[in-house]
């Protein structure tokens, strides 16, 4: 492993979450490095199979463990976690046996446009549409250039939380290419189901309709959440994306949008997906080349 790619993060903060939880903040800022570290520590913790552990889940730059303190004292757990953290100082790359997925999206769709126009008074720039705004604040000359960047490189699901189907998706690009967007000044009271949204440095497709503060930039024809589990991708669980999943947004036009909608309605739609083993060190060393390889796996056959 190249020395310059060794993870340099501040010391982790270990905190009690009442008597049943320990919360560990690895860094205040989001980065691929810190997310990989959270994944790595939680993977190692799972392998230890400590008695008394109830939940292990990683977030973007932190993780949380729930346990039965009658079986595992929180201070003993923290001691174990520190040991794992120390053991990973020089070896923090992760290997994820995951899948790479094709997620069709229509940018600048009529439905999110209708929604965002109703809430201009809550937006940092009422004169622009959301996508014009995020293109400009990220230095893109045109919305077309922004769209090309947003769907050009694949994403990693760095966290799932809130409610089933909500994912935090972080693009596998070097820091200087990262797209970031402020949220609405005051949250909207409405967001359509399947809206493609962007807030902070995370993109997400909305599992269900509801309030929201992310910028609305498009619409997906296929769901992220299927409580009836009618589509084949939802047979095991009601939500689609899992932490560690890798996917690419693929820009589609209205005709293809309508075609996929009809397949979803008929219950025949299935996401294109291929098995893939992701190596974090390769992504951090040469993201462009590694992304080409990822897309080759997804679309090569």
């Amino acid at each position: 492993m190249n020395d310059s790619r060794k993870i340099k993060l501040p010391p982790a903060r270990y905190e009690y979450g009442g008597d049943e939880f320990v919360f560990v903040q690895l860094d205040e800022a989001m980065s691929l490095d810190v997310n990989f570290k959270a994944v790595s520590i939680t993977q190692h913790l799972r392998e230890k199979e400590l008695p008394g552990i109830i939940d292990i889940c990683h977030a973007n730059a932190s993780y949380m463990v729930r346990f039965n303190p009658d079986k595992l004292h929180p201070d003993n757990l923290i001691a174990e976690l520190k040991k794992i953290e120390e053991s990973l100082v020089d070896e923090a790359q992760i290997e994820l046996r995951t899948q790479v997925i094709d997620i069709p999206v229509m940018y600048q769709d009529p439905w999110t446009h209708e929604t965002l126009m109703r809430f201009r008074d809550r937006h940092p720039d009422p004169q622009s549409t959301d996508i014009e705004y995020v293109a400009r604040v990220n230095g893109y000359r045109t919305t077309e250039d922004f769209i090309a960047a947003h769907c050009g490189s694949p994403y990693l699901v760095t966290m799932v939380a809130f409610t089933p189907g909500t994912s935090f998706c972080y693009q596998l690009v070097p820091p200087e290419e990262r797209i970031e967007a402020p949220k609405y000044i005051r949250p909207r009271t409405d967001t359509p189901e399947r809206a493609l949204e962007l807030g902070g440095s995370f993109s997400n497709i909305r599992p269900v309709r509801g309030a929201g503060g992310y910028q609305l930039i498009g619409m997906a024809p296929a769901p992220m959440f299927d409580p009836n589990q009618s589509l084949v991708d939802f047979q095991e669980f009601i939500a689609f994306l899992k932490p560690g999943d890798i996917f690419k947004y693929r820009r589609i036009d209205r005709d293809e949008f309508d075609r996929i909608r009809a397949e979803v309605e008929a219950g025949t739609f299935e996401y294109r997906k291929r098995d893939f083993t992701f190596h974090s060190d390769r992504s951090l060393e040469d993201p462009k080349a590694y992304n080409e390889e990822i897309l080759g796996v997804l679309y090569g056959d």
Partner: protein
Amino acid sequence: MAIRIVSPGLLTTVQDAGRPGKYDIVLPPSGAMDLFSYELGNYLVGNEPDAAGLEITYFGPRLQFTEDAIIALTGAEMPPRINGDEVATWEALQVRAGDVLSFDYLKAGARSYLAVAGGIDVPASFGSRSTYTYIGIGGYKGRALQEGDELHIGESRNGAGHVGTGVTPDQIPTFSDESELRVIIGLCSYLLTEESKEEFLGTEWTVTPDADRTGYRYRGGVLGFVEREQPSGAGSGPGNVVDINYPMGSIQVPGGEPIVLARDAITGGGFATIGTVITADLDRLAQTKTNDKTRFRSVTLDEALQARKQRRGQLEKIKSAFNG
């Protein structure tokens, strides 16, 4: 069929001991909000401690039994009647086919529990019968009970063994409209200003109408965060963090007002958390309601573990009295 819902009350759901171990697939712990009262109800009717019962919120339902059953009512003071006659709470009762159970107005607390020998028989969803209405899983069709619903009762383990036996008065929790919840300050509390830390613990907070199984929101002050340059990936406000997981019982302060997440907690998000209500006091939280007063008291981990042990000891003592 064994229980017909004549009228559902304000919010009556099937709950059991919860759905632990599912945070990573974005399912909260769920389960009865006041686990103490719920578990005690199960002892009274001779059930396993995690058999499913009904959680009755604020305003009671009207239920007709279509077969004989042994029941117990615990939790909030909401005087029950069978065929119009007042009956005892915290005690195992025999009901007969055709009997109608109804409730008077709530007098104290917020949530009552109906335990039935054999438990409410609904299919388990992700390892639990608890209703999580937000996404419609568990319980009866994933939702609160409605007029005309019909519930089945499971097979009872040990018949009428406990009918007529109850909990001694000193073992019955009392519910006041002024509560103190013990918290372990921490998580992201370093982001709060010093004055706000003091204000949080020094204020008598009022429960707002936003008080449900997901969380309780309070008013009575506005807490503030230290101004700083926001880290990459966090939201733009000083109370925003790069999205974290939220423990059950954790406290966040969006807009300056505290919210305590309850058993149907959302599992994570981008608001800074400042501490966690200890598990021994989640039963107490469940019995508070809109306009009640709440104070938060800071305790150490050792005190939290001691309180946990004491609560468990109390339950074991009551349980052994029934099995003895």
